Structure formats: structure tokens, C-alpha cells
């Protein structure tokens, strides 16, 4: 794809208005998970010297070290994991205070936290809300105990229901639930059941992830994609279509490949990623995208703590490559085409040139004919169609990646 050599002009990167905080602790590792986590077991950590406290210290130290960036004001903060709900209210408060102190958190900012059933009570949720959290993401995954076991989840269906009761009781009405389709042994009936139950709970937001067998996970040892007990391709594609039908009928917007929201409740934080904008990332394994540098932190707590020391010693300097213009273009397309709103061709033209837009349209022509890619003339944008275009998004994207 045509793109000028960006070496002569160094692009001016916009200021970060979002921050991701990684909380790696989990009671156990789920069988499909390849995230950077630190397994704590079921014991509770008390005292001032628990590993979680030590981690929160490193995290706050890292945050402090970014202070040279200036206090632009953050519009979204996201606590992801791991299991952030293993943090005490005090720990969350401490982290948010550190962030606010360094960057400022604007009034009305979206502050999300991922919570898992069985790890919180009413007091904790109320405490989180008191410290500023205003959006919760509940890891449900399935509404069948047998499937939760297959996944190695550390909670039961009963705990899901009591978790939802807690959220409703304390007035945490802006919450999302995560579901997984295409799990081992999962039947179409079970999936329909999960969707119906989700709709009955009526959360503001629902994320639905098709199971991916990631290398080196227990799933990779037990299963082969497309082969029983995993559903075959036809079935998991059917799950995807079924999801789209059920959730859109229930009034959710299918605003991203795997995400559904009631109007006004799209996840603002994740939209920053999909718009390929800059964001801070703090904590073990977290990635930040600051000044055009995508930087991933070490994926164990010890290595992360060591890295923070060096980072402090360097006065907050990150040494890594700046994303090239071509890569930035590919990322913009790869991420933007995940969204139902698509990618604005005017924006591409102003950032990468009209020639680039012409090349993109030429490559996409066969897919436009197949109706996997649609033009949105009123906004001069392109998007993937729902559900077919979304289902084959890799085929479309890899063509963009190949021809250039």
C-alpha cells in the first residue's frame, strides 16, 4: 500500500487520554487463558507485605515516574486482569489517587474494573464506587456449571447470580458481562440458554468472545480447533450469527466484532484501542502506546518490579521503536474495521494520502462485491458487514496486509 516514508516528518502524537492498569492476580488460571497473570491460590493476603501490596507499590512507582508527560486529564481508566476484584478497596483507591495525582482524571471519566464472581461482596463494590469506579465488567463466560469446569473457572453459576444481585443491589447499573462461545462440549442449546440468561439480566453491555485455542495453554494441550469436543467451524460460525440475532433483537447494538451495548453504553476505553489512539498502560505485562511507541512490560511480577526500578532510574524513558507509518496504517485498518462505524476514508486520506485510500479500495473491491465490505457514503467510510464481513474479517485484513 502506498505510504510515504515517514522519516522526514516526525508525526505529532496526540496526548494520552486513557490508562490501562493491569492487575495480574488470579485465584487460579483458566484453561484457555494466556494473559500475564500471577496465580495466588485461594488464600487471602493480609498484612502490609503481601505480594499484592508489593505489586501495587511498584505500580504506583511506575505511575509516578510518568509525571514528565504533563497533566492532560484522563477520560478513561480501565482495571483489567487477571482478577482486579482481588484488590482491596484501599488498593484501588491508592492506584486511582496516584493516577489522578500525575495525570488528572477528568470529571465524568469512565473508570472500569473487571470483577469475577466469588471475589467480591457488597461492601467491596460500594467501596470501589466510592473511590470513583463507575463501570464493572463481570467475567461470566457461561451459565452452565459443567462448562465453567471445563474452562477451569474458579466460580459456579450460583456465584454468577449472587454477583449480579450484588451489583444491582449497590446500584452499579453500568456493568458488562463477558461470555464465551465455542467452548468444549458446548451445545447450541447451551449457547442459546447463555444468551437468553444474559438478555434476562439486561446488562448495559455484553462482550462475546469466540474461544481461541492459544498456544501453551491447557486448552492447546487438550483440544484441536474445529475438532470435537470443540465445535466445528460451521457450528461456531452459527453461534456467532445466533448471538448477533438474539442480542440485536434484544436492543443491543453490535458495535464491534465481539461487543454489544445498549445505546450510550459502548466501552469508551476500548474504543480508544479500536480508534488506534494513544493510551497509557501500567503494570506487569501491560502495553502502552505513547508517543508512537508500543511498549510491552515484562510478564512476571519479579521482572516487572525490576523493570520499574530501571524505569525510575532512567527518569521514565522508554526505549523501543516508533511504529512506522505503514504499520500505523495497517493498525488503523485492522482495529477500525472491527467497529460497526468502520473507518473514515477522509481520515485515512488526511493522514496517509488519497493514493492510499485508492489502493485500499482497489484491494477491497472483491470483498465489496461479496458484500463483506460495505461503503457508508454519507460518512465516506468503509465497514465490514454484520455478520458475514465480521466473520471473515481476517481474510479481508490479510489481503490489505499482503498487497502493499
Amino acid at each position: 500500500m502506498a505510504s510515504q516514508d515517514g522519516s522526514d516528518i516526525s508525526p505529532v502524537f496526540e496526548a494520552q487520554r486513557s490508562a490501562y492498569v493491569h492487575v495480574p492476580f488470579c485465584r487460579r488460571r483458566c484453561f484457555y487463558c494466556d494473559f500475564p497473570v500471577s496465580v495466588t491460590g485461594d488464600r487471602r493476603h493480609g498484612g502490609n507485605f503481601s505480594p499484592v501490596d508489593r505489586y501495587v507499590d511498584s505500580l504506583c512507582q511506575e505511575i509516578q515516574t510518568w509525571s514528565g508527560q504533563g497533566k492532560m486529564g484522563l477520560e478513561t481508566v480501565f482495571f483489567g486482569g487477571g482478577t482486579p476484584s482481588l484488590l482491596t478497596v484501599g488498593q484501588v483507591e491508592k492506584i486511582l489517587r496516584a493516577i489522578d495525582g500525575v495525570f488528572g482524571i477528568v470529571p465524568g471519566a469512565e473508570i472500569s474494573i473487571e470483577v469475577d464472581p466469588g471475589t467480591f461482596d457488597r461492601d467491596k463494590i460500594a467501596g470501589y464506587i466510592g473511590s470513583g469506579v463507575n463501570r464493572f465488567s463481570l467475567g461470566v463466560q457461561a451459565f452452565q456449571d459443567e462448562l465453567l469446569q471445563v474452562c477451569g473457572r474458579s466460580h459456579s453459576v450460583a456465584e454468577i447470580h449472587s454477583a449480579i444481585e450484588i451489583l444491582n443491589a449497590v446500584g452499579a447499573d453500568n456493568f458488562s458481562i463477558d461470555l464465551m462461545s465455542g467452548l468444549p462440549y458446548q451445545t447450541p442449546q447451551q449457547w442459546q440458554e447463555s444468551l437468553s440468561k444474559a438478555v434476562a439480566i439486561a446488562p448495559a453491555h455484553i462482550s462475546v468472545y469466540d474461544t481461541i485455542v492459544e498456544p501453551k495453554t491447557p486448552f492447546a494441550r487438550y483440544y484441536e480447533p474445529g475438532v470435537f469436543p470443540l465445535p466445528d467451524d460451521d457450528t461456531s460460525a452459527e453461534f456467532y450469527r445466533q448471538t448477533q440475532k438474539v442480542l440485536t433483537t434484544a436492543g443491543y447494538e453490535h458495535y464491534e466484532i465481539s461487543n454489544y451495548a445498549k445505546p450510550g453504553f459502548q466501552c469508551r476505553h476500548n474504543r480508544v484501542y479500536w480508534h488506534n489512539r494513544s493510551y497509557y498502560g501500567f503494570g506487569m505485562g501491560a502495553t502502552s502506546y505513547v508517543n508512537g511507541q508500543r511498549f510491552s512490560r515484562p510478564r512476571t511480577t519479579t521482572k516487572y518490579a525490576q523493570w520499574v526500578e530501571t524505569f525510575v532510574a532512567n527518569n521514565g524513558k522508554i526505549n523501543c521503536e516508533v511504529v512506522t507509518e505503514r504499520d500505523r496504517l495497517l493498525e488503523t485498518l485492522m482495529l477500525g474495521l472491527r467497529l460497526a462505524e468502520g473507518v473514515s476514508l477522509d481520515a485515512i486520506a488526511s493522514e496517509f494520502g488519497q493514493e492510499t485510500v485508492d489502493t485500499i479500495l482497489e484491494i477491497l473491491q472483491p470483498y465489496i462485491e461479496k458484500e463483506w465490505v460495505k461503503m457508508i457514503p454519507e460518512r465516506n467510510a468503509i465497514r465490514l458487514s454484520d455478520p458475514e464481513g465480521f466473520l471473515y474479517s481476517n481474510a479481508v485484513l490479510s489481503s490489505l496486509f499482503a498487497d502493499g
Partner: protein
Amino acid sequence: MTDVPVSRIRNFSIIAHIDHGKSTLADRLLMRTGTVENRKMKQQFLDNMDLERERGITIKLQAARMNYTAKDGQHYVLNLIDTPGHVDFSYEVSRSLAACEGALLVVDASQGVEAQTLANVYLALEHDLEIIPVLNKIDLPGAEPDRVIEEIEEVIGLECTGAIRASAKEGIGVDEILEAIVRSVPPPQDTVSQPLRALIFDSYYDAYRGVIVYFRVMDGTLKKDDRIRLMASKKEYDLDEIGVLSPTQIQVDELHAGEVGYLAAAIKTVEDARVGDTITLATAPAESPLPGYTEAKPMVFCGLFPTDADQFEDLREALERLKLNDAALQYEPENSTAMGFGFRCGFLGLLHMEIVQERLEREYNLDLITTAPSVVYKVENNDGETILIDNPSTLPSPNERRKIEEPYINVEMITPEEYVGPLMELCQTRRGEFKDMKYLTPTRTTLVYELPLAEVVTDFFDQMKSRSRGYASMEYALIGYRENNLVRLDIMVNHDPVDALAIIVHRDKAYPVGRSLTEKLKELIPRHQFKVPIQAAIGSRVIASEHIPALRKDVLSKCYGGDISRKKKLLQKQAKGKKRMKAIGTVDVPQEAFMAMLQIDRG
């Protein structure tokens, strides 16, 4: 370079099976005689090409001149002429041996004699070479020198009382070997007064000086200002330089009978100075050339196609360049409906084929698709003419031909006796005819079969190795052509016949092969957004059929901030995979699919 009388020259080579330690021993000899200093020693000095070093085998042979003061106080010149260690290059081996008076037979004391070694020893005996048995790796705990000596005596009939026990790795026995060479290998005959005849045993192309020819002067003298004639290629050249290999090239003024050296004369391609050709003087030519020259005859053919059609000219250039250095390589343009423009290439054997492919990809940066190897069939058409077919897709249809003959080889395998059963079974499934079985020793056996070459050029060697847990070795020789009931099996992908996948098989095996091949292709060709039928047919009759189900989804469900680089890499990989595939109609077919024939289970 000091002049040494003919009586104090010794020309020898080393015969050994792969891994039995030939190159290490050669290195030792070079170091011990001070030819190469210790610190300059690259491991395995004689194996020059990267590929050779990686595979641990010698492909291009070379030579080295060593000065040695023996225990008798005399100065000797020892010329080591290396030989390639693979059956594909048996002609080159025979020319190297013809340039020597003696050979070291190196046998791994923990293993024993292998088929390839045996073949080369017989070749050496035919050339009247004095053979010095060396038992190598004597330091290994598993060494059984007495058993191996017994085996050499019984199998080859070679007297082994003087056998040297050595360890090239540890430097044990190296002095004894040097002394034995001086004592046992006869000096060359003193024929300095006769007209010049020098035997070419190797040549390679040098971009600056043209072809560098390695030769042994058999008769007469060659001087640096001579004009030479090559008796087979009938070309004449003025010499630019002559010299010896020590082992780097050192120029000299003249070389006389018995000596080994190199020459450069602005020769444009190795085809003009092929191995086995005789060098004589243009002004005073010898009456007849040295015996043993043979034209290179490729036995195995395959199609080579660039994945990217734009690389066709690059491929042509690369083949031209390789050909400068490889007289046995043949190629001519081929136009395949499925694959576009490429080349039909002929090779001495499978290893030769693999080496060429690998060099094209590695040294010339080409992305190639190779079709399954084929042999040369003799087809008699309705006019009674015999035509040669090296490409299955060009086989005349059944009503346009009277008969097809295919090449047969005599295969000799040496194996520990417990693998005789599995190997016989292998040969039977490959249409082999049993000829002979002999016990070499109570536990080792030779097994002789006659087999169609076509059945051997696929995966026979790998099968033999796996069925014998790596212990069996083999050697083969072409024995002629035989008529068989052969048919062409066509493969259709999404109803399009793919000429590059067509194969010639025996009618009795067409069904199982067709079935395995369609099954394999189903595995190798990725899913598309539509259903892809794969069929095997003889003429218009479909005999096997499979289909690749349509791809229903191709999506990365989750993509959060930390995932972006990883997802991008996945897409880049997918994009790259797409680029390396060949589009057959609307179906993208990966490179491996064109070699599917080598991967199928043939019973």
C-alpha cells in the same frame, strides 16, 4: 613449491560412509603435515559449501597437496583427492578414484561397512587402487574393531592385517596412516616423456577467472604458457595460470605426470571442462583420450516454478548461474496451465535435486514451487516411434501410444538382519522383484532387489531409513527399461485439472494412490470460503474424490490494547502465507501440496 620426483608422489582418496569421519580425518592429515595451520583450520576444511557443512556430506570434491617427511627421512608429496559421498555422484567418484593410486577405506569401528562404502571400494578395486583399511572412532565405547575387521575381510575380501586403528577426532593413528600411504600406495608411473594427458576430476566456476579445473596429470607435462585442448568438448584455450592446491591455490610453472593441480583458462562454463574429460596440448595432442568419460545423464526430473510469476527471469538467470558450475543440471522452459512459466529440470538423483532447489531458494532468494519428481519414460507412439517423456502431463493419451517403458534399477541394501522383513515388505509394495539375499556376517545382510526407479525417487530412501531405524544403507545402479501397464493419474482441484499434479503410476496402484493423494491434498490445501472438490481421474473416469469443506469463519474474536502487536503479527503471517501460495483458478494451493506425492502412504 619444491620439485619432487614421481617416485615420491602419492595420490590417494578417502572412501567412507557419511558420518564415518572422512572429513575429520582429512582435517587431521592437513594439520599433521602442516598444510593448514591449526588456527586457520575451519572444521572440515575440504567441505567448502555451506550446504555441505550443514548436511555433513561432501558434494563438491576438492583436493589438497601435502608435504610430508616420512620416517625414512625422505620428502614426499601426498595428494588427497576428495570424493563426494552420495550415490547421485557415483560418476564423479569414479573419476576421482581414477586419478589415484590408493585409497583409505575408513570404516566406523562401531558401525561396520555400509552399502555406499562397498560400492566405492569395488569401484576403487576396479581401478586397481591399493586400499588401506582404517578403523575410525576407535575411542568410542561402542567400538568393535575386531568384528568390523572380520566384516571387511568377509564382505570385501580385503586383507586387514595391516588395518590401522584410529580416531580422527582424537588424533589417534594419524602418523600410522601417513606412513602407510607412503609405504603401500604405489607411486604414479613415470610417463613424463609421453604426450600430455590430464584427467579432470573436478571443476568449478569462479566469477573472476572462469572455470577452475582440478586435474591429475597422467602423462607428460603441462606448462603455464601452454595452449590446451579438451578432448571431449573439443575446445581449446590458452592457459592463464596453473598451480597446486595446498589446499589454497599456489601458482607453479609446470606440472608433470603424477602431479595434481588446477588450471584457469577463461573457460566459460564447467560444461566445457567436464569431469572425466582429458586435457591435452593443442600443439601436440595425445592420440586418444583417457578412458571412462561419460555424458551426464539426468535420472530424475521435476518442474520448478516461481511462486511469483515476476521471478521467472530471476529463476532463469539463477539456473544459468548454477549450470556454469554444474554440468549435470539440465533445464528447459516449461509452460504449465496451472503454474504458469517455469522450468523442467533434470538431476542426477534426489539429493542433487534437493541441493539445487535449496541453493536456488537460499542463494538466489527465490520462492519456488517444485512438482513431484518424475523419471524418464520411453513411450512408443502409434507410428512406432519411441519418444522420451520426463513430464507426466505430456504423456500421449492411451489411444495415441502402444506401450510405455520405465527405467529399472538394481538396489542393494545392507541392513542388520532384524530389518530384513520390513525392507522386503517395502520393496514389495514398490513393485520390487527380489533378486538375492546374503548374510555378510551372522547379523548383517545384503538384500538385492530390482525396482522401478519411479518407485524409488519418491520417499523410498526415507522409508528405508525409518523402517531400519536408520541402520540400513543403499546403493543403486540403472539396469535398463521395462514395459509396464502404466497410466496417467490426473488431479482436479475445484474441477480444474492441475497438470503439475499429474503422475504416472502402475494401473494396479492407481486406486490406492489416487485415494491417498486426494486425502493428502485435502489436508494440505487450506479451506476457502467455498467448498473445494479434489478428484483423481484416469482419463475421464474419476477414481477418487474428496472435498475441502468451506471455511465458515476467519476472525480474531478478541483484540484489546495489549493484543494489538500480536494480532498484527498473526495477520502478517496469514498475509505472507497467502503470498506463497499458487492460485489454481480461485483456489490458493500451498507449495507443499505439489510435493504431496512424496508424503502419501503407499502401503
